[in-house]
């Protein structure tokens, strides 16, 4: 029942052909696709970094990589996966789907949206180019002071300080955009408690980012100033305190991990009902637990610092807070199982990944609870046990959730379906490979193997499981190859499907596949949670779903269109402003090189100024609403 009524007047229709149309696009769908493709590329980059790490660690006393190369590899692996993969994949889904899910025609600030994307892309390119231009960051993704401020002969950690700073600005822009969009641009009748869970999780993650990124911004500026301007924020010899960095980092870092998992939880909260043919069990509980996680997430940061010597009172407080946050995080699992219970389950690829998400997140969540037992954590922290924990929640959790989302929404983006055969091979190989890689790491950690070590000696019993983990890693790599092949093949010649191939529940499935630039010819009026489902199905006396009679609808079903639909015009200023900002960043990275750095900085300022003023002065086409 897709909307196919003709549109009277579309106003200015931007060209959709050619590279320039992509560079100047402000269409949330195109921006979403660009985020997704970029993230996939960096997933491969981060994966190759991981494979090199695993190759080195497959045997004891390995000499394949030097310590220096290894340190850069594991640092970049962490930075790449967090900032260049998981966050942009979430952004891809959020960008593409949020307006469609709430019945809007674009986000609140389309040019800011484009700016955030280009800033992200140019910043990660700059960060990645560090390998060829001065050396990559090598202080671990957490960049602990005062190691990160100790060696200023290399610019490696300046790339880190500036690169992460720029990425933070991009995310703050996106987050403000999503909050403004979701708060003010929902279709008529869509109250907050009728929004899809994925949209709700986007609200929570946006608030988490808005409030946590500025804190690490301060920490990063302090690191940069210590390295380049002689300040002594983290200089113990001058009465500075290296622990200040840890606090600032983790006040950002802990909410950040919820930013990394909540979107995937939102996706799974959508796919499970569709493929169980039942509503989400306990929608309100799921939403409120997401909000609770958002609040509580700001109160547990020092559980990353249980061995830092904060004293037993602080450690006890944060330990208890960490146990508390396990409750809202964990009960969602029961809600998801409750959704499946009594349903009619279609075990296709998106559903397999959703179920895999639940199964793996249980393990990662439970190992997290073992961390909350503070004295036990003093054996687990900084060992392979914690590496196992966070890969179970970030890979087994977030990545599996994103795979579910990819298989689920691919038909909406392309009008074609991904191959089920390849999909199932992808799932099973990834599932087996993932568990083979990270399951044994629990054992390695408990048996005393620390993390961030470029080699380990014989005789400690670590060789066997390290070898197994390496085999698992290559298995994962092969499964990702299958995924990429699936995407390419299906985009070219996949089976074509209509707008609602899954008989789904939320508004995006009312739009065409792929949607027109204006998303909906007519904006639907919302009277229910899972509004689309309720336009197709009622319930019988036993509460079972029954199809509604043909032509039945609650009137008025759509907002009457009074004029033409005006979409925002494309613009090149966001890209220019982003380029200027990144050039400024590059200038700062090379500040210690004298004229080179200052020169690049000045050029960057000029370009940024051109971009920002042009953007401000640009005549505003009426924003879509």
């Amino acid at each position, binding site marked *: 029942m897709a909307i196919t009524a003709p549109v009277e007047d579309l106003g200015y229709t931007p060209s959709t052909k050619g590279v320039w149309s992509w560079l100047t696009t402000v269409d949330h769908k195109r921006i979403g696709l660009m985020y997704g493709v970029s993230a996939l590329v960096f997933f491969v980059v981060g994966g190759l970094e991981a494979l090199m790490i695993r190759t080195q660690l497959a045997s004891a006393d390995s000499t394949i990589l030097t310590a220096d190369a290894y340190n850069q590899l594991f640092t970049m692996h962490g930075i790449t996966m967090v900032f260049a993969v998981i966050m942009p994949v979430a952004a891809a889904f959020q960008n593409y789907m949020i307006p469609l899910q709430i019945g809007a025609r674009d986000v609140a600030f389309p040019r800011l949206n484009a700016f955030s994307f280009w800033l992200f892309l140019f910043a990660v390119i700059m960060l990645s180019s560090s390998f060829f231009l001065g050396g990559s960051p090598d202080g671990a993704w957490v960049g602990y002071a005062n190691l990160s401020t100790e060696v200023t002969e290399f610019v490696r950690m300046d790339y880190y300080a500036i690169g992460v700073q720029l990425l933070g600005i991009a995310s703050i822009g996106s987050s403000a955009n999503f909050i403004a969009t979701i708060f003010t641009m929902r279709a008529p009748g869509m109250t907050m408690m009728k929004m899809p869970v994925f949209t709700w999780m986007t609200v929570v993650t946006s608030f988490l980012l808005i409030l946590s990124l500025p804190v690490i911004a301060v920490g990063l500026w302090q690191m940069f100033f210590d390295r380049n301007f002689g300040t002594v924020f983290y200089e113990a010899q001058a009465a500075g305190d290296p622990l200040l960095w840890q606090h600032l980092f983790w006040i950002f870092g802990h909410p950040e991990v919820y930013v990394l998992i909540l979107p995937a939880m939102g996706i799974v909260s959508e796919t499970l009902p569709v493929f169980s043919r039942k509503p989400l069990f306990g929608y309100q509980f799921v939403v409120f637990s997401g909000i609770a996680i958002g609040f509580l997430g700001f109160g547990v940061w020092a559980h990353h610092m249980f061995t830092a*010597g904060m004293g037993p009172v602080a450690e006890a407080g944060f330990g208890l807070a960490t*146990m508390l946050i396990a*409750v809202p995080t964990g009960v969602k699992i*029961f809600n998801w199982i409750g959704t499946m219970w009594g349903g009619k389950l279609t075990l296709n690829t998106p559903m397999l990944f959703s179920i895999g998400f639940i199964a793996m997140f249980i393990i990662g969540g439970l190992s997290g609870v073992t961390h*909350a*037992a503070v004295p036990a954590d003093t054996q687990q922290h900084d060992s392979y046990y914690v590496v196992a924990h966070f890969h179970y929640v970030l890979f087994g959790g977030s990545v599996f959730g994103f795979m579910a989302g990819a298989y689920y929404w691919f038909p909406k983006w392309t009008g074609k379906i991904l191959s089920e055969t390849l999909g199932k091979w992808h799932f099973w190989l990834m599932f087996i490979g993932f*568990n083979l890689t990270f399951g044994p790491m629990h054992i390695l950690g408990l048996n005393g193997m620390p993390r961030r070590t470029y080699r380990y000696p014989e005789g*400690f019993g670590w060789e066997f499981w390290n070898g197994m983990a390496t085999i698992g890693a290559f298995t994962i790599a092969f499964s990702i190859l299958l995924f990429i092949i699936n995407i390419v093949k299906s985009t070219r010649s996949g089976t074509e499907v209509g707008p609602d191939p899954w008989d789904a529940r939320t508004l995006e499935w009312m739009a065409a596949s792929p949607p027109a630039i204006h998303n909906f010819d007519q904006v639907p009026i919302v009277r229910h949670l899972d509004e689309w489902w309720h336009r197709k199905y009622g319930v019988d006396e036993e*509460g079972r779903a029954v199809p509604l009679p043909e032509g039945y609808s609650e009137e008025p079903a759509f907002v009457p269109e009074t004029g033409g639909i005006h979409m925002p015009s494309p613009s090149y200023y966001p890209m220019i402003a982003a380029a200027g900002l990144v050039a400024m960043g590059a200038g700062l990275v090379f500040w210690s090189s004298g004229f080179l750095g200052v020169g690049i900085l000045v050029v960057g300022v000029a370009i940024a100024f051109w971009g920002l003023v042009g953007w401000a002065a640009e005549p505003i086409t009426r924003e879509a609403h």
Partner: protein
Amino acid sequence: MLVVLVLALLLAACATSDLPQSSLNPKSAEAQQIDELWRLVLYLAIAVFVVVEAALVIAIFWFRKRKDDDKPEPKQTHGNTALEITWSIIPALILVVIAVPTLQTLFDLASPPEGNFVRVNVTGHQWWWEFEYPDILDANGRPLTTANELHLPVGVTTELKMTSADVIHSFWVPPLAGKRDVVPGHFTFIKITPDVSRAGEAIPGQCAEFCWLSHADMRTLVFLDTEADFQAWADRQLQPATIPTDGPAASGFEIFTAICSTCHQAFIAAPEGPEVFGEAIAPDLTHFGSRTTLGARVLDNTTEHLTQWIDNPESVKPMAPELNNFDTGRILGMPDYGLDAEEIAELVALLEGWK
């Protein structure tokens, strides 16, 4: 099937391990306390795991769509408040069961030791461990100082008081205690009461906070001695090293005073009386010959390895001595001084003689 595999992994893990650096192999009262807490949490976690994964697996199999399915659509259940409240409270109660022993163990391990206890001052350096016993003094009042290899008496509590000379490290000997970071500008503490039954064992440990190039190679070895053996070791350690008068070791001493003492120190039986010679930037070498390992337990202390270490230090562990800065105190490794084979042999003879 996969559930069984995972369970097998878990059970393999929770079995006691006799691996040398395993935390599942507690050899002190404190490590034992941690292990008991860990086992409680682990068993509860496994129980939750089995129940929840089983529910998931049952749901998948029971409610999957069959091929020739003509059953009606499922009931559109929106939730069940009573159930949801119940399954929020039960995990909360389980957490209370974990919280109580957690807090007890936490405060117990954090409390200062009572009665007589041995004190050791630990200083982390890039990339070696400095140990000083402030209560074990020689005739001149100088405390026992050594590096990388620690001796502790069994059955008695030792308190490590720790800090760092440069960046953050972490002291971790899993069979003896949980780790604790060593932070410049701060003091942190670990209590260790080794089991009496473990006398004679040497327990390995290593740095657990990334500290750059040789983080993986900043290791330690803890010797658990009977009280008598500990006393004997301490008495020997307090003796000054003799200055050799002839043979290659005598030439080695010349090299030591000219080059090595720029960073290293030794407590020497000089003609005028015992004195400390050299700098405390690098490990104390007074009794280097009696240490079983070198380079912070990267290699066994043999003639061949010692030769390699002096000849080409960066072939043993990665360092960056070209970045050493004596003004700021940033020391990042032992340089290669380009000594020839004969000079190295002389130094080796000297150091091997300093037992």
